[in-house]
């Protein structure tokens, strides 16, 4: 029992944080939102260089580049991605790697051999839809591959989506409804089993990302209220401001160990609990950040907006609070 990141795990997160701090992520997010995926792709490729994406893939298939599955390391990494605001289908790419890797583990190796090496190496981004997830694929226009798994267990490589991509309230997200056809890759109960695992990973990594988003929002807001003065005093000295930020920290600090435990155990109810807590904490952090920044927080000009706009879609992605609450009690019934 030592419920803390190991030295190695902390080092890995620190490496990612250093890389991201040096990478001008906000500019990449704005470019991504404007339809220029270049800086975001380059960032992803540098991240993949740390082995990030390989953590999602089973090392049993050594020739495919997998180093995992190492969900704890991956989750700690996704906290950093959230904190830095990394754009793109990063959760989806990792979940696709899990899907392919898990399918290979269950004996269906073809799709993994074809797609996994590129994903693990960071050469390609992927997106996907899964049973139990929403109908939209994130950033299919930026992804090399869009996978779909039907409720009946058909895995396909989807072609272009129906209609153009739809804008999200977060300009750095674009949604499309994958066409139900496309190239069939595999089918059957193994696909469904792998999809269930991939869904749990997607939910876990979104939770981790939410935690990082919330941390970034809190940190920016704490900085701001210390320097912004009104009525001759820093607004961070007002008790209403202090208490609201205290509550923000509280929610994040109690979500964090849920994310860790979900990564350790990957049991569906714990993953749902982590997503619920981290998603709500991040959204509440966004509302606090907005209120305490005042009008300037309500503009797209401040980089703060990049995280503010992410918080609500991530709260709902791969499991809304209501769906997560249902999952928490569903498994614990009896």
């Amino acid at each position, binding site marked *: 029992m030592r419920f803390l990141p190991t030295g190695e795990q902390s080092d890995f997160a620190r490496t990612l944080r250093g890389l991201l701090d040096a990478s001008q992520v906000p500019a990449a997010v704005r470019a991504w939102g404007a339809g220029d995926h270049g800086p975001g792709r380059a960032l992803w490729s540098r991240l993949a260089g740390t082995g990030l994406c390989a953590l999602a893939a089973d090392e049993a298939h050594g020739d495919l580049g997998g180093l995992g599955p190492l969900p704890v390391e991956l989750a700690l990494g996704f906290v950093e991605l959230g904190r830095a605001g990394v754009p793109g289908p990063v959760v989806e790419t990792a979940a696709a790697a899990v899907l392919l890797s898990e399918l290979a583990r269950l004996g269906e190796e073809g799709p993994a051999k074809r797609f996994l090496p590129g994903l693990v190496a960071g050469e390609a981004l992927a997106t996907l839809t899964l049973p139990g997830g929403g109908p939209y694929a994130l950033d299919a226009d930026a992804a090399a591959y869009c996978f779909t798994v039907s409720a009946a267990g058909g895995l396909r490589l989807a072609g272009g989506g129906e209609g153009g991509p739809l*804008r999200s309230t977060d300009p750095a997200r674009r949604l499309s409804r994958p066409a139900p056809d496309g190239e069939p890759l595999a089918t059957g109960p193994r696909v469904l089993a792998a999809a269930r695992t991939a869904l749990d990973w997607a939910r876990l990594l979104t939770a981790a990302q939410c935690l990082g988003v919330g941390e970034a929002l809190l940190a920016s807001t704490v900085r701001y209220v210390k320097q912004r003065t*009104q009525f001759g005093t820093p607004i961070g000295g007002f008790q209403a401001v202090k208490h609201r930020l205290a509550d923000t920290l509280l929610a994040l600090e109690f979500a964090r160990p849920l994310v860790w435990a979900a990564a350790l155990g990957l049991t569906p109810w714990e993953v749902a609990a982590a997503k619920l807590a981290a998603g709500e904490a991040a959204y509440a952090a966004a509302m606090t950040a907005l*209120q305490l920044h005042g*009008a300037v927080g309500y503009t797209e000009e401040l980089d703060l*907006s990049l995280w503010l706009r992410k918080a609500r879609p991530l709260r*709902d992605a791969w499991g*809304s609070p209501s769906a997560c609450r249902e999952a928490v009690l569903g498994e614990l019934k009896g």
Partner: protein
Amino acid sequence: MDLTHAPEVAAFRAEARAWLAAHVPDSPLPSLETAEGFAAHRAWEARLHADRWSAVSWPAEYGGRGVDIERWLVFEEEYWAAGAPGRVSQNGISLLAPTLFDHGSAEQRARVLPPMASGEVIWAQAWSEPESGSDLASLRSRAVRTGGGWLLSGQKTWSSRAAFADRAFGIFRTDPQAPKPHQGLTYLMFDLRAPGVTVRPIGRLDGKPAFAELFLDEVFVPDADVIGEPGQGWRIAMSTTGNERGLTLRSPGRFLAAAQRLRALWRAEGDPADTAARDRVADAVVGARAYELFTWAAASRFAAGERIGAESSLNKVFWSEYDIALHETALDLLGPDAELAEGAWAEPWVFSLAGPIYAGTNEIQRDIIAERLLGLPKGRR
């Protein structure tokens, strides 16, 4: 105690309803935070004004119908229930016009009000400055005396509608030597197209230029556009701020209509067995009714000659937090479609998020409630 309207009021309601049914556009206008939408909304104002529905509470001489507060609230109820467009002239009608009625000259009213009501001149407010948000008394933009008028210099920000508007109003420091920061301020109107004015639109969270920064460099304002006495700007502005926070900014009709739309969404999208969603929809319905009734009570006091003072802070906190909760409920009902920018609820949700910030942050409003309504000790402010 009585909640029924007299037959004349019911007749007025029927007239308004009939006009709106005949004139409200079938499909929503484009967002008024775009150039195209702004023009469309301006045209709608002209349509309203042509039949004297743009500012029903104004005297007939300025294009109104001289109706009392009861009829005004009835009109607003009908207006929003009919799904009519947002009011691009709102800043002028609800902030500047009351100031002109209280402090302006007859000449100013005659000159300014009719084109305001017709949408020919759209007004932006110019209150805040970069270092003066909640702390309005610390304003630094100045107006310096010159022949026949004043020269404005400085910077204003969060000027709603200024990206596309024609004129603006605000307060400026005319006596930097005044002993207290509230003194030596003057209330002025100015042209956004005048030489020396630079308008820099600012994108809202959803990218729309809902407000702008104004850079002013020796902008000439004739004496005719000073409202009230020079040096009295703070007092005059505070009466406008009171208006902004009070009854006139958010009429109950808006929330009744929004709650109605939410109920329709719930029936269409909601799982009737989902009591968690049901409870939130019920709260929205109850909240809209509470706000309506609170307003009727306030209107009754107002009609009886009472002044509405710090109670308007209760009003502001209630509607702004109510509005967010209502829109969040709608988003949750929509599920994965909630994040679609083109969805019917996305822009109103973003709009709702500004409520607790503008027109006096809710932190300030709660201080006011505690100090003026409950008599608690003043804090540092």
